[in-house]
């Protein structure tokens, strides 16, 4: 049973560029959440996708956007990259509220984004 997978593992971009990160949820999961983890800090919630719609959003600017596909995989897009966007981006999958109230999330290994 494949767990949560993310690609790429590492990424280096220049200020002002755009980046797309990808996530495939654990088999059977339909909800994907994205988190940003700056070095030495705890993860911060960016947004969550369920049924191909953004359901919850944290305190992040509109430069951060996402998408969920019919197969439940998801993308995180960041436009106009800033140096402060350098972080580990974590994807987590879970069952939606309609199917589970355990709120157990499975995290992927993350994508390390470096903005220079």
């Amino acid at each position, binding site marked *: 049973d494949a767990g949560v997978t993310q690609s790429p593992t590492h990424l280096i971009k220049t200020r002002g560029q755009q980046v797309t990160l990808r996530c495939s949820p654990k088999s059977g999961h339909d909800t994907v959440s994205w988190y940003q983890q700056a070095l030495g*800090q*705890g993860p911060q919630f960016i947004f969550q996708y369920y049924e191909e719609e953004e359901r919850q959003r944290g305190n992040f600017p509109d430069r951060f956007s996402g998408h969920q596909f019919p197969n439940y995989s998801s993308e995180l897009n960041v436009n106009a990259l800033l140096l402060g966007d350098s972080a580990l981006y974590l994807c*987590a999958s*879970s069952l939606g509220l309609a199917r589970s109230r355990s*709120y157990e*999330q499975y995290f992927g290994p*993350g994508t390390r984004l470096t903005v220079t």
Partner: protein
Amino acid sequence: AQTVTQSQPEMSVQEAETVTLSCTYDTSENNYYLFWYKQPPSRQMILVIRQEAYKQQNATENRFSVNFQKAAKSFSLKISDSQLGDTAMYFCAFGPGNAGNMLTFGGGTRLMVKP
């Protein structure tokens, strides 16, 4: 908005000993979930233990147990019989009752288990 505070940036424990990691949180909600996650150097976040706020009984998972004090808004993690593989960052996290998937994390505690 909820906040989660972990006041111990770093801790160390001898192998086979017991260690307790502290976590406090602030919320106005009555129904919520609390979690402890482990993040080893491999970066993969792993769920250690979960507690539903409406349950008075403290959760346990093998060598891991929690002391949940709802009135004090405290949620500490006790690791018994510490093993070298327990060396990792530990994060306390809060999930609101209506959107438990939307987690608020603390700043983490780096735990080192010494042989």
